[in-house]
């Protein structure tokens, strides 16, 4: 097990539910010991991807390499190292204590159970004395989520996958889940992959982000996606008509390509020293949200142009010079040629 190998390497993954393609990943690496955020709307393929990373779901096509070795589901080598906390974690109809040690019993690792349960419960902010012997139905949503997390943490997993871990919990639980997850990485070098709708929370915990749209992966994090319908104007250009009259000119797509993405680096702000001149799409909107990237201290800003949201990334200096704040009206630009279709 060398650290030169990424925790995961996915190659040419395709997966379908019936005839509908739900996952289409050409290449994806997740570094060992990294904390990766997974951003995407409902039905984008997030949960499917997480199940695949947990080896609970076999892709229809493609290969998954775990630390350099190709693996598939149910192989004990990975089954016991990777664990997934599902969106609605299922607690077994047993006591909290029994729920937490379930995984250990499978691993026949049953020394000092009480002490270990005590430790892991305190990590997720629950008191052993008052919680260990509660029944599964005597817990609030946040408590149940934390118990489920404790049942994973006690396994000291190499990889911890969290699917919307704070979607239905209170603020206090959200904080405790964040803290406990970070501790796992710091203590044992656990690789974390976290999917969440709460971008603020996600940016505060993850080091890099992957966004996923209709099963397609964008490793640079959240990007601007423009969906149809489009109008064709000549061979080389497509137009997206906008309710407030600002048309977007896009280069024509290739065959079977339906959606357009504009990368963060290709979106410019006026005035910026760039020449927002002829041939550029010029759009005015207002800043809707700003997130700080934990690792790089860059700022990811979401700008609403009518009902389309554009995502762009700024250095701290740039952000300062533009004097950006949520609600500020700004003008954006991008070149039709910079659009990528998929």
């Amino acid at each position, binding site marked *: 097990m060398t650290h030169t190998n990424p925790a995961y390497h996915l190659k040419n993954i395709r997966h379908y539910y019936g005839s509908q393609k739900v996952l289409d990943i050409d290449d994806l690496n997740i570094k060992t010991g990294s904390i990766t955020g997974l951003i995407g709307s409902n039905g984008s393929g997030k949960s499917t991807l997480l*199940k695949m990373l*947990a*080896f*609970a779901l076999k892709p229809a096509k493609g290969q998954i390499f775990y630390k350099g070795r190709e693996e598939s*589901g*149910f192989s*004990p080598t990975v*089954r*016991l190292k*990777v*664990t*997934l*906390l*599902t969106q*609605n*974690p*299922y607690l*077994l*109809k047993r006591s909290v204590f029994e729920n937490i040690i*379930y*995984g250990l019993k*499978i*691993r026949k690792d049953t020394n000092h159970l009480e002490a270990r349960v005590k430790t892991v419960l305190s990590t997720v902010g629950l008191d052993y004395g008052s919680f260990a012997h509660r029944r599964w139905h005597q817990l609030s949503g946040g408590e149940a989520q934390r118990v*489920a997390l404790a*049942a*994973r943490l006690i*396994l000291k997993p190499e990889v911890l*996958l969290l699917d919307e871990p704070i979607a239905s919990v209170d603020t206090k639980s959200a904080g405790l889940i964040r803290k406990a997850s970070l501790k796992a990485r710091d203590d044992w070098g656990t690789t974390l992959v976290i999917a969440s709708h709460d971008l603020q929370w996600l940016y505060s915990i993850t080091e890099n982000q992957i966004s996923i749209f209709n099963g397609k992966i964008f490793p640079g994090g959240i990007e601007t996606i423009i969906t149809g319908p489009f109008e064709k104007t000549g061979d080389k250009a497509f137009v997206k008509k906008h309710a407030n009259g600002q048309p977007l000119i896009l280069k024509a797509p290739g065959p079977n390509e339906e959606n357009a993405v504009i990368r963060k680096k290709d979106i410019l702000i006026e005035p910026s020293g760039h020449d927002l001149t002829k041939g550029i799409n010029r759009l005015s909107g207002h800043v809707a949200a700003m997130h700080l990237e934990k690792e790089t201290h860059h700022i990811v800003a979401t700008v609403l142009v009518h009902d389309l949201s554009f995502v762009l990334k700024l250095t701290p200096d740039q952000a300062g010079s533009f004097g950006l704040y949520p609600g500020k009206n700004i003008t954006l630009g991008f070149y039709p040629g910079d659009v990528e279709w998929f």
Partner: protein
Amino acid sequence: MDFIVEGFFKALELLINGDGSTWSAVLATLKVSVWSLLISTVTGLPCGFMIGYFDFKGKKQLRTVLDTLLALPTVFIGLVVYAFISRQGPLGEFGLLFTLSGIVIGLTILAFPVVTAITASTVEGIDPDLKLTLISLGAGKRHILTTCLWEVRYGILTAIVNAYGRVSTEVGIAMMIGGNIKYHTRTITTAIALETNKGMFADGIALGLVLITIAFIVNLSLSFLRKQ
């Protein structure tokens, strides 16, 4: 009205005084219901679990057949079993007609689809997140199977209670196969039918009370178990 009130007092009198025919009917009912329940659970539970747990060709059709069997009229079961275990029938040499064992066969046929169908439905209704959760905790196929079985234990209890309700209140099979033999195959239900026929309502009510009491105790201990 009098005979109804009289029935309640007669019930207490019969039970406290240890009336031989009353207690033998109670015991016969317990024996046949417990045995048929035991056999149908031991056989029906694995069948129901497999039908619910695994996907296979013809599963839908099998469920339809099972649901039809649920509605099997007890007199029809009685007729078929009678035909088989009568001395003339293929199983005649075992001499099962007019015995408690004969009733147990009939009641088992009655209870088996109940246990199987309800178990299958319960297992089919297992939260899909359960399996995912178990895999993610490192469980292998064997662990997943046994844990699923333990998770649906309350559903299985429901299946058994339902089956118990059917077999303990059944009268057609007990009458046809058991022959309502006093001190031997007379069960609470056939005794009630007989007493009503004879116009002896008090005795019938007495036995009815016993039946209700047994059902009450069974349900009480189950709800107690469920609370644990």
